[in-house]
């Protein structure tokens, strides 16, 4: 279990206990946090679960797999701290992670 904080574009903050093994994307979708579309359902094929990771977390997250950076090319306003939340699998190590959800997913 890890506490994940989602900052949505309407300036609201949602801190959710997300079970280990779920993805940061699933944590948002299952808790009705708006702004993560996840059109492809977690297949790293659509870039609509794009989030900005709080800078201090960037190095603590598992590295991007092949293909994630390619998909981020398609994301809406990608930045250096962009990740696909479907690729971030929750574990105890992610306790306290904070992500910002972009204004749009496409």
């Amino acid at each position, binding site marked *: 279990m890890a506490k994940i904080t989602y900052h949505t574009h309407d300036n609201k903050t949602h801190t959710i206990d997300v079970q280990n093994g779920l993805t940061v994307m699933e944590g948002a979708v299952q808790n009705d946090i708006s702004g993560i*579309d996840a*059109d*492809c*359902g977690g*297949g790293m*094929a*659509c*870039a*609509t679960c794009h989030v900005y990771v709080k800078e201090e977390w960037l190095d603590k997250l598992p590295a991007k797999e092949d293909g994630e*950076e*390619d998909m981020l*090319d*398609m994301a*809406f*306003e*990608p930045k*250096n701290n962009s990740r696909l939340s479907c690729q971030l699998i929750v574990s105890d190590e992610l306790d306290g992670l904070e992500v910002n959800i972009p204004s*749009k*997913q*496409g």
Partner: protein
Amino acid sequence: MNKTDVLIIGAGPTGLFCAHQLGIIGLSCEIVDNLDKAGGQCIELYPDKPIYDIPAVPECTGEELTNNLLQQIKPFNVKFHLNERVEQLKKVDNRWHVKTSGGVEFDVAAIVIAGGVGSFEPRKFPVKECEKFEGNSLFYSIKDKSIFRDKTISIFGGGDSALDWAIELSNNSNVNLIHRRDGFSGAEASVQKVKELNDQGKLNLYTKYQMDSVVGDKNIESVKIKHDEGEIKEIKSDYVLGFFGLIMQLGPILDWGLNINKKTVEVNTENFETNVDGIFAIGDICSYPGKLKLILSGFHEGALAARGCFKYAKPDEKLRFEFTTTSKAAQERLGIKK
């Protein structure tokens, strides 16, 4: 006006198999899809990626699955209307009149929405002013490349479309290729070619830049690009092209009076009809308690929706349940010769 029993919206695996199920029970159908080919997400998002959970098919690619489904519905001579998006629906007596973006019209007894997560549309620039120039000096796809001759073109993106067009247009135009990072997702050979052209001065490559703004009155005059480190460059451009792949949008479906919940259409699980009589929804686009977004669930939903269409298409007939193994009628429809 195309008159048929059922209109299927979406040529993904679910829509294709529903066409099969309609054919087996003796109903005709036509299929509309916004893409230029059948297959939906399977063909657009993952043609080469393997799928392992199609019953009795241990492994196949999205493309193979699509081709097999097309093969399976061949006996029914289903008519496809590709590159068309359904725009308007109107109930006329007991039938539906439907019109597409390209002006194709249908007169049908029932509609099956198998639209996945919506129709595929090009992803656009985040910069707001871009809308103003869209279609005159800013494009997301190319229909007539002759307009670019001897002009300055700024192309954004790092995939195959961006690279291929940069290479192609560099023959007769002054091309800038702008991409957000040093790596590219396009084919390695194209990346090498682009770098070569850049070294020879036949193309200007800007990496780690993204669009900042566009400048111009009626037409684009220049585009400002911003480096990761914050530096802004203004480059003269007659045309801007953006290639960021496709995104799925529900589009006009939202206006049809259907119960929509989180980009999905609510259905009953008896025949996958929506809250509107004669409109069914199957596959990823439908929702009901326990819904799984699997292709195999879409097949099941399509089989039941096809039977649900029967009472609208042939109100005076009774549908008898039959197996294809033994049904003479079904085998005739499949064109089986004994």
